């Protein structure tokens, strides 16, 4: 490995991994919640939270994006569209479920048209809970998913736990409450919305 070629390859490989984890471009898909989370996502992208310092850019095209940010519960109406948007993204890619509805179906869970969390349809890598979560927590979720972009991963099935599934709890989420630093916690196994 100490050959000049190996050395160059090693440096190049490190540079590519670094570039991939530091440039998470988002594409935002709303499955049809109340739009509270969507407003918080837009909030996270405003100058106040300066998402660009992490290389985060919001793009309109799933084919140009690295992280799929999904809000709202998975439902029969647009499950297919969600699947297609996910399929259009090139590897390496990650999925972030934002808000209670996307995590497990939320207030809509159990309704006849609702399938549960978006983990039922696409493999979710990070969950951000809250109704709605704070912008800081959404950004923390994106940063938790970013290391997974370092290399291409094998195909993943919906509901399968990614190697770094995390939960970003809603600390101090009460209106007027203090915003605590988001805490990252590992989630045991294929979690959200598996059981009916």
């Amino acid at each position: 490995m100490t050959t000049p070629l190996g050395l160059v390859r090693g440096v190049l490989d490190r540079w590519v991994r670094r570039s991939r984890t530091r440039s998470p471009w988002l594409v935002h898909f709303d499955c049809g919640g109340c739009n509270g989370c969507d407003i918080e996502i837009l909030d996270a992208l405003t100058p106040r939270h300066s998402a660009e310092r992490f290389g985060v850019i919001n793009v309109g095209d799933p084919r140009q994006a690295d992280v799929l940010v999904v809000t709202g519960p998975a439902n029969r109406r647009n499950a297919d569209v969600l699947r297609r948007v996910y399929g259009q993204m090139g590897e390496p890619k990650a999925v972030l479920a934002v808000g209670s509805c996307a995590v497990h179906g939320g207030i809509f869970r159990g309704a006849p048209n609702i399938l549960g969390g978006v983990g039922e349809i696409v493999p979710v890598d990070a969950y951000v809970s809250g109704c709605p979560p704070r912008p800081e927590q959404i950004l923390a979720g994106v940063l938790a998913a970013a290391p997974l972009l370092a290399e291409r991963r094998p195909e993943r099935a919906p509901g399968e736990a990614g190697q770094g599934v995390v939960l970003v709890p809603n600390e101090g989420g009460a209106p007027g409450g203090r915003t605590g630093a988001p805490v990252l916690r590992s989630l045991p196994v294929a979690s959200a919305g598996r059981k009916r």
Partner: protein
Amino acid sequence: MTGLQPLALVLGLIGAALAPVGIGLILGLDRRVTAAMQLRVGPPVLQSLYDLTKLAAKESRPVDRVSAGLLVAHTVMAFGALAILLAGGDLIVAVLVLGAAQVLFILAAAAVESPYAQLGASREVVLLLAGEPLLLLSAVAYGSVAGSFAAAAVAAAPPPVLALPSLGLTLGVLLGIALRKSPFDLASSHHAHQELVKGSTTEMAGPWLALAELGHWFEAAFIVAFIALAAVQLPLLAVALVAATYVVVLIVDNTFPRATWRSALLIAWGVGGGGAIAALLSAPLLGGLLGGLLGGGLPR
């Protein structure tokens, strides 16, 4: 066109090949300064290079075959234009090759079915319309100072920007266009205040988007080198000229984020064109004066 020395050609090719690293760093600085103007932290200086590497290393998604071919041609032509300029070749040829590169990109954007890409392509046409005449006029102004259109001759002549100060306006407008700055309905750089999503690259993804980006970087490098050429005999002045032009473009970009393509055309032709024409009209007068001062005199 004066014949190019083989050595100059090799140096030009090497310079053009290294240009993306320099432009990547300049764009990174640009994003940081813009962020500071908006009271944000901004991304790391290497961010633009991260973005390009990531795109290049991403899984390739099928693109339109015609569009893909045109994209390759666009990048190669933009590289060629830059190499001609850096090798000290004919300015008019370099400017026309650059124009051809831009036309190829417009065709690549218009070759796909997406209406967003079509809209983006038509806006790129407006940018070409705004920028290309200015570039040609500036090249003519350089030539009127140097007595030759060869970039090497211009570099050896008294700095055109001192002979024709109003050319600075034109160069500023040109830089703004090359960087796809302000008018928000034209804009397609990565700044947060430009809310419109880049239309022309709608159907490009992964390595193909990286290729399109690389082509634009060559175009930007061409304009930066073109601006530096206006004062290349005094390197400090050349750096100051590029920096000053860039800062003015950034301030305008942040002050008028809601300018439209009409105002862009008006500003480009009014300010930039006015500056260039004033420069051309005053060339014999001011140029002669400065030439006399520097002792060189103008070949006429």
